[in-house]
C-alpha cells in the first residue's frame, strides 16, 4: 500500500482539458465514466505514468470516486502505476512470437540495456518488459513503444540494436538543440 503525502497541485493544461472535453462528447449524458480509459491514456502520454495525484485529478474531472479510477488503472496492463523509462520497450512474449525467437530478443535487450525487466536504465531513457500477445503474430518477434505505440516487426538482434542506438541518439540531439 502506498503512503502518499500531498503533492503539489496538478494542473492539466488547457490543451489536455480540450482533448478530454472532445472525448466526453462521444458518450450519452451522465455516462462520462466511459471516458476514463481514453483520458488515462492521454494523461499517461503527457506525464509518462499515472501517479495517484494524477488519478485523483482524473477522478475529480470525471466526477468519479478516486477508488473507481484506481480500480480501472490497476486492471489494465497498459497503465503504468510506477515511473518508467522515457522509452518503454514492450516485447511480445506469447507463443507464436516465441516460435520465431521472441525469447532471444528479450535476452538480447536485457543484455544491451543492462537492466532487468521492469527496471530503468541509469540515464532514465529506457525500460523494457515482456507483454502478452500484441496481435501481430505473423510479423514476430515484435515490440512497441508508447505513447504512440509505434510498432517494430520481424526483429533481430541487429535491428533492436539499431533501434536503441537511434532512440538514444535522437534524445541526445534533441537535448543539444534545446
Amino acid at each position, binding site marked *: *500500500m*502506498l*503512503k*502518499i503525502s500531498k503533492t503539489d497541485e496538478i494542473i492539466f493544461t488547457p490543451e489536455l482539458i480540450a482533448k478530454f472535453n472532445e472525448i466526453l462528447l462521444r458518450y450519452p449524458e451522465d455516462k462520462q465514466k466511459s471516458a476514463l480509459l481514453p483520458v488515462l491514456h492521454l494523461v499517461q502520454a503527457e506525464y509518462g505514468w499515472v501517479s*495517484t495525484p494524477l488519478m485523483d485529478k482524473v477522478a475529480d474531472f470525471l466526477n468519479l*470516486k*478516486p*477508488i*473507481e479510477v*484506481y*480500480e480501472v488503472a*490497476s*486492471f489494465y496492463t497498459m497503465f503504468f502505476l510506477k515511473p518508467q523509462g522515457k522509452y518503454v520497450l514492450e516485447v511480445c512474449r506469447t507463443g507464436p512470437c516465441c516460435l520465431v525467437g521472441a525469447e532471444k530478443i528479450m535476452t538480447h535487450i536485457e543484455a544491451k540495456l543492462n537492466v532487468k525487466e521492469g527496471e530503468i536504465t541509469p540515464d532514465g531513457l529506457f525500460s523494457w518488459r515482456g507483454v502478452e500477445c500484441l496481435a501481430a503474430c505473423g510479423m514476430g518477434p515484435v515490440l512497441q513503444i508508447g505513447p504512440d505505440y509505434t510498432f517494430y516487426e520481424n526483429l533481430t538482434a541487429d535491428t533492436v540494436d539499431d533501434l536503441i542506438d537511434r532512440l538514444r541518439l535522437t534524445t541526445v540531439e534533441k537535448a543539444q538543440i534545446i
Partner: protein
Amino acid sequence: MSERVKVTIDGISVEVEQGTTILNAARLIGGEIVPPAMCYYSKLEGSGGKCRTCLVKVSKGSEKDPRPMPKLVASCRTTVMEGMEVQNITSPEVKEARKGVVELLLINHPLDCPVCDQAGECHLQDLSYEHGSAATRYEFDRRSFERRDIGDKIQLHMTRCILCYRCVYVADQITDRREHGVLGRGDAAEISTYIEKAIENDFSGNVIDVCPVGALTDRTFRFKNRVWFTKPVDAHCNCDKCSGKVTLWYKGEDVIRVTARKDEYGEVESFICNDCRFEKKKTSDWVIEGPRKISKHSVISANHYEQLAPPPVIRKNPALKEANKEQFERVIRY
C-alpha cells in the same frame, strides 16, 4: 399479483414468484438441497455469480422449452421458469464441480483455521468441511499479504479473502462513500484502498458481517474469544441511524461483540450502524430480547445453553431414555 411458477429441485416442487432465482427457490424449500453460496447476498444488488459454489444442473429448462441447459449454471443468478427441473445434490456432476470449486477456493487460502479469528463462523470452513477433500494437491507457495488496519475498528487480511465482492457492494450500496475496491486482476487482484486510508463512515462495519471468511474482522473483538465460547443474545435499542436490532455476544457478564442478526445463510436481517456495533458494549445500552437461535450444525451450538442433548449414557439405557423422553424427542426433532 405476479404470476407464480413451479420449479422442481432435487425432486421437490415449489411454487415461487416469477423472477425468483433457483437459489432462492431452493431456500424456500430449505434443508440440504439448498446450494451453498459464498458470494451471493440477497440484500446486495448485483452480488453473486462469482464464487461458483452454487452451481446446479438444469435438467429441464422449462415446460415450453424442456431442453436441459448445456452447462451447469450459477443458481444464485439464474431465474426459474415454469416447469424447470433442477438437480443439485442429486447430480454427481454438480457434486464433482462443487468439489472442484472448493478445492480451487482453498489452494491459496491458508489452512490455519485454528489461528483464524473467523473459525467457527467461517463459511469457507463449513464449505470445505462438507465438500472439500481431506488433503490438498497444491504444492506451491500460497498467496499472502500483510495484515492491514483500515481504520481503528476493522482489519483487512487479504490472505484470507476469496474475492466475493460483498464488501465492495456494501460500500457502494450501504455507505455514503466507497473508499475501497478490487485492485489488480486475476489471482493478483486484491481488496484495497490503494492509498493508505481509513474507511470511516457510519455503516462501514457492515463489511465485517458480510465477509464470508476471516478477511475483514472486528478489531474490537479480534482474539478476545472463540465464538463458540460466547453466547449470542438478541437485543435492540432506539437508534436514529439504523434499526438498532442486533445480536450481542456475551462472555460471562460482558458484551464482547455486537453484530447484526444473521439468518441461517449468514445474511443479516438488517444492516446496523457503527455506533451500535462498536460503541455500545454495555448491557445497559440494550433491551434484551432473548437467546439467539443458532443452527444446530454450527459449532457455536456446541456450547448450547438452551437445552442439553441427552448424553450417550441415556440413549443406551432404556429406563433412562423413558425417564428423559420429553427432552429426548425435542432433540430428535431438530
